[in-house]
């Protein structure tokens, strides 16, 4: 065999050797990627935050704290809470227009707010990066505020008032979640709520009670946010 033939065969063997190695490596990589099960969510916790303008964060799903606990890869409970309370006392002295005398008054304001939502979430698809889910559960909200005027002068006629509202409903969401890392995902969801809302306003200076209630089935604004798993 001539030296040239030997050289060509050696070169071909080299090329096929490199090619075989490259293709085999690519196949291994592809197989590994295909076999990746995606993020393992079982027994994980996560926080949700809404994404607002220019990717700033805000409250998610109309609650200040949204936490999710996965029981398995396909099922989870999402709990949202928002609690707010403040009490304010003001002492003021007013000059009465009609006789120019002073009227000392104590004003007391109290405000209570609580919102709670609980959703059972089931994942309808188990894609590697993108998952679709359906959630359903109750949502309640309670709000009450009261203003009391206590006058040290008999002449002052202003009195306080109180007002409250309650909201209770059943909420459902259909959303999609994209995991761009194993621990962080972007979520976007449609929602609807079947609810009862009632309120009562009492203005003592008129001594009139205003009240109302409403039943509704309404769409909710799209929730767009980020979920961080740990």
């Amino acid at each position, binding site marked *: 065999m001539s030296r040239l033939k030997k050289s*060509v065969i050696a070169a071909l063997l080299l090329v096929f050797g490199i090619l075989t190695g490259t293709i085999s490596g690519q196949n291994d990589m592809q197989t590994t990627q295909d076999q990746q099960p995606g993020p393992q969510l079982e027994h994980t916790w996560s926080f949700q935050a809404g994404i607002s303008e220019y990717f700033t964060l805000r409250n998610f799903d109309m609650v200040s704290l949204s936490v999710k606990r996965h029981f398995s890869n396909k099922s989870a409970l999402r709990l949202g809470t928002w609690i707010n309370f403040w009490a304010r006392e003001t002492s003021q002295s007013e000059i009465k227009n009609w006789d120019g005398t002073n009227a000392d008054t104590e004003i007391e304001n109290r405000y209570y707010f609580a919102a709670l939502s609980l959703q059972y979430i089931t994942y309808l698809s188990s894609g590697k990066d993108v998952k*679709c889910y359906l959630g359903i559960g109750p949502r309640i909200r309670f709000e009450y505020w009261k203003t009391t005027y206590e006058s040290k002068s008999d002449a002052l006629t202003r009195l306080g008032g109180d007002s409250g509202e309650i909201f209770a409903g059943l909420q459902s969401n259909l959303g999609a979640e994209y995991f761009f890392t194993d621990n962080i995902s972007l979520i976007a969801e449609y929602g609807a709520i079947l609810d009862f809302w009632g309120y009562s306003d009492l203005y003592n200076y008129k001594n009139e009670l205003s009240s109302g209630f*409403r039943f509704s089935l309404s*769409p909710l604004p799209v929730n767009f946010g980020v979920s961080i798993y740990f």
Partner: protein
Amino acid sequence: MICIKNFLTILVTFFLILSCVLTAQEGKALQEDSKNSLISGSRSLQFRISNNLTLTSFEGAMISAKKHFTSNSALRFGLGLDIRSGQEDYGAVEEDDNLFELELIAQYIYYTSPKAPVNLYLGTGPQFTYNRHVQDRNYEETGEDAAWQYDRSWTIGLLATFGVEWFAIENISFFCEYGASIGYQSRYMESTPYQGYQDQETTQFRLSSQTVDFGLSVYF
């Protein structure tokens, strides 16, 4: 000299083969880049990308979804439903307020070349809306009508859209689309005389172009 020539021949052969292999791999990579979710059986949710990169509802406030029957054809469906029934008591006056709003949109979407890096699509389908709002105020003591307002409208139309969709990854795409609609609307209003009219009926035929929609699709 012969040895050098042989070595050069082998080198040239090697680089030619390597070039062919690399070119083929690059082609394959490009083909893989255009891999997307426009396949039979895929489903997706659509969202509108609104001001300052926030997401809002797309077609229908309650849900906007798409189902592919083949890689070329799909059905896009939008639903909006709002039902409210309430009563308020203002002391002397009592008000009943009832609202019903329904919006249904269905579009057949056809993708001209679903394997392309950027996919052009055309869509057409019907649109139907129905709104009914009744407000009734009565004096609590006498039960007499204080005010009454009835507003009912419905629209039936045909939508046509064309747009492009680009897959950022296999399951997520961005799209923008133009659209136009042709529709017929009927509206009937009735109220107590002092509102300015007793009853009014309007019918309207309209052909209008829609504003450009920019959105996001998530496939699963």
